[in-house]
């Protein structure tokens, strides 16, 4: 393994180092302060196997109200929140083929937004490329796990008043949404998802305020139905925009 390639992979992963350590810590702090009994081990298991910020921040909310989430609902929500991952593998269908099987599975399992972004930019060839891609995936994965565990430990050590800190979760989703909406194609879907949820929320508050925590599934169903109904228009708008 060439040290130069490993070093190049490390340099490429530096922005992710900053991002994942801080985001991972935010996740760990939230998890350990919001979910009773969650600690560094919980954070380590979640971050090692899931490696998805959007999934894990939503998971904090779901684990906190675990009674409201059956395993089936958990699976549906996980599917919907992470559906974008189904397209991330497409550019790598061939690239990953020459790897030994366990490494290939590792590379598939570690395709996060950021790792995907770095790996699709790479122009190396042959063995150099294989080493590079593996190192980027591995480094990013480790930053995420280390950040999460550090956050969870910190969250359980510091007895500070955390009431209101759960807004950080809402803030994270807002940040992601603002960045997504820089792309005009995402604006109409965002408006649909937000307004459908607000409407379903209003219905729940009016008729059954005790069950508001169950609103995501109906809201998701209506949103998907609307997006499918509007498919023709949304795709046309995109083609005209290009």
């Amino acid at each position: 393994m060439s040290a130069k390639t490993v070093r190049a992979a490390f340099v490429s992963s530096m922005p992710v180092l900053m991002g994942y350590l801080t985001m991972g810590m935010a996740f760990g702090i939230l998890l350990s302060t919001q979910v009773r009994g969650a600690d560094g081990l919980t954070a380590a298991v979640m971050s090692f196997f899931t490696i998805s910020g959007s999934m894990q921040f939503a998971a904090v909310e779901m684990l906190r109200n675990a009674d409201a989430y059956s395993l089936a609902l958990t699976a549906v929500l996980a599917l919907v929140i992470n559906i974008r991952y189904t397209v991330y593998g497409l550019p790598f269908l061939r690239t990953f083929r020459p790897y030994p099987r366990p490494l290939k599975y590792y590379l598939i399992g570690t395709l996060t937004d950021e790792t995907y972004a770095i790996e699709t930019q790479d122009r190396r060839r042959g063995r150099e490329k294989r080493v590079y891609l593996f190192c980027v995936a591995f480094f990013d994965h480790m930053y995420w796990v280390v950040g999460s565990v550090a956050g969870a430990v910190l969250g359980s050590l510091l007895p500070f008043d955390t009431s209101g800190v759960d807004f950080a979760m809402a803030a994270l989703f807002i940040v992601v949404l603002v960045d997504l909406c820089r792309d005009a194609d995402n604006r109409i879907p965002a408006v649909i998802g937000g307004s459908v949820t607000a409407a379903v929320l209003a219905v729940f508050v009016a008729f059954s305020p005790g069950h508001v925590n169950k609103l995501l599934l109906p809201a998701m169903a209506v949103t998907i139905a609307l997006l499918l109904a509007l498919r023709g228009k949304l795709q046309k708008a995109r083609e005209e925009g290009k």
Partner: protein
Amino acid sequence: MTLHQWLMIAVMAAVVIFLRAFPFLLLSGRKKTPALLFYLGRVLTAAAIAMLVVYSIFSVIDYNVSGWDRFPAALLAGIVTAGLQYVCRNPLVSIICGTAVFMLLR
């Protein structure tokens, strides 16, 4: 942490791994993604995140305890977060400032 919570964690991880593996399982022979799936992949992320924004803002105001009392603080904190992110593009700054605004005003 209950058994149910651990099972939820396992289900979430399994779904995410399945989604990442999906194209490799299904399409390694084919050239094109099914159009419907590709479309949903494109539009669903923004819709789902917008949904989570609305839902998580509603959850932090703790409606069943204090009604809409905390809604103005949450709304203002949300606007601060979005505004900072739009201008500065620094997620950490936006999240910390927005959260601080909410903690101070609630």
